[in-house]
């Protein structure tokens, strides 16, 4: 067990992960990761989800298959991932090389009042991912392993699955735009150009 005060700060983790992201396509789950990724910089190539709990990784899969030459990164919470556990099996079976899933694991449903999730009670998401067929899996629990983690190199030989253990502090939300149609059109225009609206 890592002491709470030694756990990683989610906002700093987000900033470190996305530093120099260039054209990585980023999907977030609802809840804390939506605010974390936005705090690292709102970007046209972010698709922050405000709903659809359990669906973030599958949005990533559809996108990764549609855009095989781009890197797709899903950043989501442990609660959100647990609701879509089956999608890990689906993704492992589909085997998209360019898809990475990173779970910010605070072992709680942060957004709804900090109830413990299953990862606080024994569920090991990395083992789940491994068991359904992910070969590129890792866990980051301290500053040192975070420092040596580089999304561009670690996401080679995907699909990649990584759990980052973070502290369960609940920082004030940093909100991205909330209109889904706007977020979708903004993303498509940045990725596909103006013609995408026709």
């Amino acid at each position, binding site marked *: 067990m890592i002491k709470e005060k030694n756990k990683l700060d989610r906002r700093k983790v987000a900033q470190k992960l996305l530093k120099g992201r260039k054209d990585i396509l980023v999907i977030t789950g609802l809840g804390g990761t939506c605010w974390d990724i936005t705090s690292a910089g709102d970007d046209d190539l972010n698709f922050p989800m405000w709903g659809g709990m359990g*669906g973030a990784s*599958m949005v990533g899969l*559809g996108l990764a298959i549609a855009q095989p030459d781009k890197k797709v990164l899903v950043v989501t919470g442990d609660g959100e991932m647990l609701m*879509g556990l*089956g999608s890990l099996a*689906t993704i492992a079976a589909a085997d998209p090389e360019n898809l990475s899933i990173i779970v910010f694991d605070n072992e709680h449903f942060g957004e709804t009042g900090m109830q413990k999730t299953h990862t606080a009670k024994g569920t090991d998401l990395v083992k789940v991912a491994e068991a359904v067929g992910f070969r590129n899996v890792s866990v980051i629990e301290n500053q040192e392993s975070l420092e040596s983690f580089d999304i561009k190199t670690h996401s080679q030989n995907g699909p990649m699955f990584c759990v980052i253990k973070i502290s369960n502090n609940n920082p004030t939300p940093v909100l991205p735009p909330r209109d889904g149609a706007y977020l979708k059109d903004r993303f*498509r225009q940045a*990725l*596909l150009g103006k013609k995408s609206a026709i």
Partner: protein
Amino acid sequence: MSDDKNIKSEIPQWPNTIYNTIKSKNFSQVCYVPDAGHSKLITLCESDTDIDCVTLTTEEEGVAMLLGTWLGGKKGLLLMQSSGVGNIINMLSLAKTCRYPMLMLVTMRGEWGEFNPWQNPMGEACRPVLEKIGARVFNVEDSINVETTISAAAEFAFNSQQAVAVTLSQKLIGTKNFLTDMK
């Protein structure tokens, strides 16, 4: 007429019609939880190297996946049976909120001459719940309407950026009787 010919004329052609229609409209991703009624279409799609087929563990994964498909500039199709509609309702909020086009083909159970009463609740609820969460629903009962309906439904979905379901009636696909069909 020889027996042979009789048998051949009974093999349903509508799955091929659906396949040809989605090909002509450049669908490149197909995801599904299988239903017996979709098995031929699934086989056709899986043998097509230009179509990425994804097997889902639950239908709601497909609704989320097709958002990603559209974000990436491609077109996708979700196949399921009517019971699967019960698994996707909250996820269809995405289609309504984000206004992305998606086409679902739903093979009906619990609707016409059903053998298994456990299918009936979702057979009955299928259309109303889809409509309540904002999807348009078109029904096909006769093979002569398959091409025009799938084609019109796809146009509707992609021109209006909205979720559209085509329900394929048991009148079209036939009713399943485990005692005689599963021998």
